[in-house]
């Protein structure tokens, strides 16, 4: 299922859809986040301006209160009592005001000093308190706010200060100086910083932001941020290790009463933040607001997560649908696949699924159905043909076996005693062929008489079954005639005579027949249209002699009567004869080039063989190399003969175990030795008697009855005598030193051993004994003359 079409389809579709979705979502995210950012920014700016309005409103109202009072003082110069009641009323109306003071200083107008006063009203919880600032302990003339006011041309806010002895809170005071003819008059209104702070904190609570108010002198009033409370903005900037680049711009902008905003890294929040600044109405105050990006992006992130989840769900649903659809669409294809797999396994009777629709799959199913029928028919035909061919092959195999059985059962001779080696090779081009060979050693097991190697090699015209049948006829005839005639020419003549009869098919056979006398090396050869053998001899200077024996060729056998004649020659010991059929010299390679006799000679010269079988294997590897992949056109037969010459063995050695039963072997060996070397057989009994007496003595006395020791006899002869040397490893014992048997006194039991030795001494013509290297060596010589 891993590689199924459905799986791959789901995979690819899912991957493409995911890619497209991702691209769309990315754009959507970018677009939406931009939009959202903008909206959030606008929202935040709206909040900032609302806060500004609220703060500036409060400050404006305080300023206005003071300005109004000052205007009244200037224009109508009310009495002290009247002024004090006006201020008290104003305080009640304006809850933001912490305190109000009116100072009329007569010192500036020395003429009317009795009118001077300094009245101060301030809140203490719910009540309005009054303090006369002109008392000894407070001494308003020494206060900063008063000193500052005297220098003023226009109203101004003081920087925050703690009004000890009067208001007793942290405050900033709006000073409105009034210059009249009767002296210096000052109206003040106090803003308790705690009030401003409370308002800012309230505004902060609603939004995720920090709001600061800043006095005209740059002191910061914060809502919840205690760290910046009453800090001087300019000093913060100077104190910072790395003054941010925007700092001086900000200072400049505030000074010029401008509003704006910028984004930067906020150390307090440890993140990027947005900073907004604006002057508070007509007052000298400034408002600063900072809010974090996180609060803005958090919303965007929530939106994105929702988007991603939607997409994942969508893709999952998509996969499910695609799976369901493709499964349904490909079901017939799957059935078809199952059917074809069954076909492949040979189940041709597997039922194909019904063609469901008239689409591509339906058409494919119909095609498969046609194929199934055709295949079934084809296989049925093939089976019949195969069966028939199998029967023919089986018959041909049997024919091949029969043909093989017509050839000599062993394809080689290796008789060391006769010094003859022969090796044959036959490879039919087809199952059966028309090539043949035959060989036989006459009198192979005989010790006497001429020992002849007969050999025949032949090639029936044509090849295949017809040739094979004719070949059988030829081989049978050769076996019948071959044993009776000595001369190969006679064999050919008689064989020809038989084959000519009843040969309506005009089949013929080329044949080479030969005999080799294994003693003398006399070779007789006769040929009926067959190539003559090659003769190989290693000359004394190590240069091999290779030549083709030349001889008049008679006609091929089976055509007309003919009197054949043999060539007679004597070959050298240790020489080779090599015969072959035209499968060798007429072998062709893939370029249709003939192997030819020149190549045969070249190969024989290059690789002078050390045995007949090596000659064959050398020739085979050379011809295989030449033909390569080319099909053999004709049957190939090779026959190699190696004649070493009969070795004249002048010595013979036989070793037996120290058992009396094994003496028989020595007797046989002695007999064979005399026969093989044409020595007088009348000496046999004498030799046997001597051997028996000496060896029995060794077995019984020397080895004291131990049966697994050995005794060897070396038998040799020269022109005058036969020598036998007996060797054993028994204790040193010289039979010649044994005392004379008590002759003539046969009853004496003890003399029996000595009797044997006496017999030996009497019979041999010379006896000698020596003990060498732990061995007893007893040598006996018998004159050949005696046997004649």
């Amino acid at each position, binding site marked *: 299922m891993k590689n199924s079409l459905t799986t791959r389809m789901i995979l690819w579709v899912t991957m493409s859809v995911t890619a497209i979705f991702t691209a769309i979502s990315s754009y959507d995210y970018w677009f939406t986040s931009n939009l959202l950012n903008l909206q959030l920014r606008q929202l935040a700016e709206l909040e900032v301006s609302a806060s500004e309005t609220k703060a500036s409103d409060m400050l404006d109202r305080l300023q206005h209160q003071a300005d109004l009072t000052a205007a009244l003082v200037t224009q109508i110069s009310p009495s002290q009592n009247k002024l004090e009641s006006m201020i008290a009323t104003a305080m009640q109306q304006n809850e933001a005001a912490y305190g109000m003071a009116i100072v009329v200083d007569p010192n500036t107008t020395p003429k009317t000093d009795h009118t001077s006063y300094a009245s101060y009203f301030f809140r203490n919880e719910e009540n309005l308190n009054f303090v006369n600032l002109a008392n000894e302990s407070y001494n308003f003339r020494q206060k900063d706010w008063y000193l500052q006011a005297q220098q003023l041309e226009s109203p101004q806010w003081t920087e925050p200060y703690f009004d000890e002895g009067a208001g007793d809170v942290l405050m900033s005071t709006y000073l409105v100086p009034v210059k009249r003819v009767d002296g210096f008059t000052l109206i003040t209104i106090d803003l308790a910083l705690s009030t401003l702070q409370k308002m800012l904190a309230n505004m902060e609570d609603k939004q995720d932001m920090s709001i600061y108010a800043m006095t005209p002198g740059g002191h910061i009033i914060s809502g919840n941020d205690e760290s910046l409370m009453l800090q001087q903005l300019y000093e913060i900037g100077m104190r910072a290790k790395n003054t941010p680049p925007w700092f001086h711009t900000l200072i400049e902008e505030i000074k010029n009463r401008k509003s704006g905003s910028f984004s930067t890294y906020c150390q307090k929040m440890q993140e990027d933040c947005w900073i907004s600044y604006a002057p508070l109405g007509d007052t000298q105050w400034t408002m600063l607001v900072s809010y974090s990006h996180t609060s803005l992006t958090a919303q965007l992130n929530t939106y994105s997560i929702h988007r991603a989840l939607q997409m994942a769900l969508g893709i999952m649903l998509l996969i499910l649908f695609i799976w369901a659809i493709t499964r349904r669409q490909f079901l017939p294809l799957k059935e078809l696949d199952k059917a074809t797999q069954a076909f492949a396994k040979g189940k041709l009777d597997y039922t194909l699924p019904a063609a469901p629709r008239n689409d591509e799959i339906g058409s494919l199913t119909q095609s498969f159905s046609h194929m199934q029928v055709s295949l079934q028919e084809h296989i049925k035909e093939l089976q019949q043909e195969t069966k028939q061919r199998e029967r023919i092959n089986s018959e041909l195999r049997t024919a091949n076996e029969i043909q093989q059985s017509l050839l000599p059962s062993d394809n080689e001779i290796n008789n060391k005693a006769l010094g003859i080696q022969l090796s044959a090779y036959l490879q039919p081009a087809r199952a059966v062929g028309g090539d043949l060979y035959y060989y036989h050693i006459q009198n192979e097991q005989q010790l006497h008489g001429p020992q002849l190697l007969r050999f025949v090699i032949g090639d029936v015209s044509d090849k295949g079954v017809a040739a094979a049948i004719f070949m059988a006829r030829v081989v049978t005839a050769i076996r019948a005639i071959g044993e009776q005639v000595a001369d190969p020419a006679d064999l050919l003549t008689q064989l020809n005579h038989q084959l000519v009869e009843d040969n309506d098919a005009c089949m013929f056979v080329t044949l080479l027949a030969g005999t080799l006398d294994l003693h003398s090396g006399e070779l007789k050869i006769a040929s009926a249209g067959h190539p003559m053998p090659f003769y190989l001899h290693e000359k004394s200077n190590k240069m091999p002699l290779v030549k083709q024996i030349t001889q008049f060729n008679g006609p091929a056998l089976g055509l007309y009567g003919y009197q054949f004649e043999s060539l007679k020659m004597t070959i050298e010991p240790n020489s080779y004869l090599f015969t072959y059929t035209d499968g060798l010299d007429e072998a062709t390679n893939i370029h249709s080039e003939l192997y030819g006799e020149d190549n045969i000679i070249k190969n024989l010269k290059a690789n002078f063989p050390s045995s007949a079988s090596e000659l064959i294997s050398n020739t085979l590897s050379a011809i295989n190399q030449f033909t390569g992949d080319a099909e053999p056109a004709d049957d190939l037969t090779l026959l190699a003969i190696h004649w070493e010459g009969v070795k004249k063995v002048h010595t013979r050695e036989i070793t037996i175990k120290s058992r*009396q*039963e094994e*003496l*028989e072997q020595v*007797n046989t060996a002695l007999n064979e030795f005399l026969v093989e070397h044409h020595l007088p057989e009348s000496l046999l*009994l*004498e030799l*046997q*008697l001597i051997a*028996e*007496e000496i060896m*029995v003595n060794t077995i019984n006395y020397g080895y004291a009855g131990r049966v697994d020791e050995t005794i060897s006899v070396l038998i040799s002869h020269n022109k005058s005598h036969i020598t036998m040397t007996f060797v054993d490893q028994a204790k040193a014992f010289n039979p010649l030193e044994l005392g004379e*048997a008590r*002759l*003539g006194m*046969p*009853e004496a039991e003890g003399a*029996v051993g000595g*009797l*044997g030795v*006496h*017999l030996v001494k*009497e*019979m041999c013509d010379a006896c000698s004994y020596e003990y060498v290297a732990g061995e007893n060596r007893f040598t006996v010589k018998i004159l050949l003359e005696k046997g004649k």
Partner: protein
Amino acid sequence: MSLTIEVVNQAADCTKMYLIGRLDTNTAQQLEGIIDKEVNEKTNMLTFDLANLEYISSAGLRVLFKTSKALKKHGGHFGLMHLQPQIQKVLDIVKALPAVPIFKNEHEMDEYLDAMQKKVIDGDE
């Protein structure tokens, strides 16, 4: 080659054995066994016909000596006949049987037996 022994009891006390083949170390025991079975104290005359004996070794000679000796002990007679040249040669070499009468043929043996018979009868007288 082996030894074949044919035993002919010509009379109750007169036995003749034909030895055919080879009388050597390996066949000597075979002959000894037959003699132990066929020859006893009642045997008066034992003759070996060696016409077909091809070969004899000292082991064979030993059996002949032993038998000759056993017969003499109780007054029996022992003889050999039809000796082949090679057997004669061995006997010549060992000069072992001067006291054993050797017959060229049946007639000589009969004469010898008659003489022995006569000697016994004369001796009894």
